[in-house]
């Protein structure tokens, strides 16, 4: 399947910039689906990069390293505007301070949005506190609009 690559629309850019709930999924060789929360999402040159916390993702990272097949859901936590990105893992980086700092920033952004909407209560210390974190990059093959509604699941067109 060919790569998906084009300039994002303003709506798509706004979704990735704003408060974001990120879910990262893989499937084991025995076709067991696995999903973990991720943080942040940046798209450039046909590649999407997200951040995984080491503490919560050991099994998934091993699966992604073995199968290279990944799906990432990016959803605004209040409006529920949502895109799913599917593709092939091109890199699982080593943990670094920049990934950790970005995960911290995106966590606060996410929680601020929930607080402003009156949804959030105090999380258990440590639940969202990011320890070591690393970037995972995928080459995008397909994108789907998963915003709730009749159009949910519609494929978003990329390059021809």
């Amino acid at each position, binding site marked *: 399947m060919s790569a998906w690559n084009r300039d994002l629309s303003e709506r798509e850019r706004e979704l990735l910039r704003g408060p974001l709930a990120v*879910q*990262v*999924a*893989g*499937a084991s*060789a025995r*076709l*067991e*689906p*696995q*999903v*973990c*929360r991720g943080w942040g999402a940046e798209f450039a040159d046909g590649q999407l990069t997200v951040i995984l*916390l*080491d*503490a*919560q993702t050991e099994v998934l990272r091993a699966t992604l390293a073995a*199968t290279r*097949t*990944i*799906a*990432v*859901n990016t*959803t605004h936590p209040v409006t*529920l505007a*949502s895109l*799913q990105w*599917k593709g092939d893992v091109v890199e699982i980086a080593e943990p670094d301070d920049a990934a950790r700092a970005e995960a911290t920033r995106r966590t606060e952004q996410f929680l601020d949005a929930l607080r402003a909407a009156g*949804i*959030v*209560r*105090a*999380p*258990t210390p*440590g*639940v*969202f*506190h*990011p*320890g*070591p974190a690393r970037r995972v990059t995928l080459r995008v093959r397909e994108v*789907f609009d*998963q915003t*709730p*509604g*009749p159009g*949910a*699941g519609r494929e978003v067109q990329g390059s021809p």
Partner: protein
Amino acid sequence: MSSVTLKELRPALEGVFPAVIATASPDGTPNVTYLSKVWYLDDRHVGLSNQFFSKTIANVAKNPKIQLLLMHPADMRHFRVDAEYVRSEYAGEHFDRMSAEIDALASLFRMERVFRLRAVDVCRVLRAEVVASSADG
């Protein structure tokens, strides 16, 4: 990871936070999306609100394995649930009760025309666990 029973994670099924469902197609391509509600049916089964699923249902028809990610409404602890799709119910007691709940939820989000229950997907729970929090000191 520490195992929990379905009863122990029932607060995470209150619907405060939407649940996440991951499935896999026969060629190993994962799919991940949100669902409005997961209902406790009994100690071994949950019901999933099927409103917008298309790829999810296509996947479980060929590979019934699913994984759910749930969040506790009070402290935001995460729970991971491995389960198997059993059947879809389009009518009956479960469907009627859950459809009424979804209608109420839709009203809350002002999405009455958008949120509509198509089916209750019944799944058998294989294991449930608390997701570890940060190991960082």
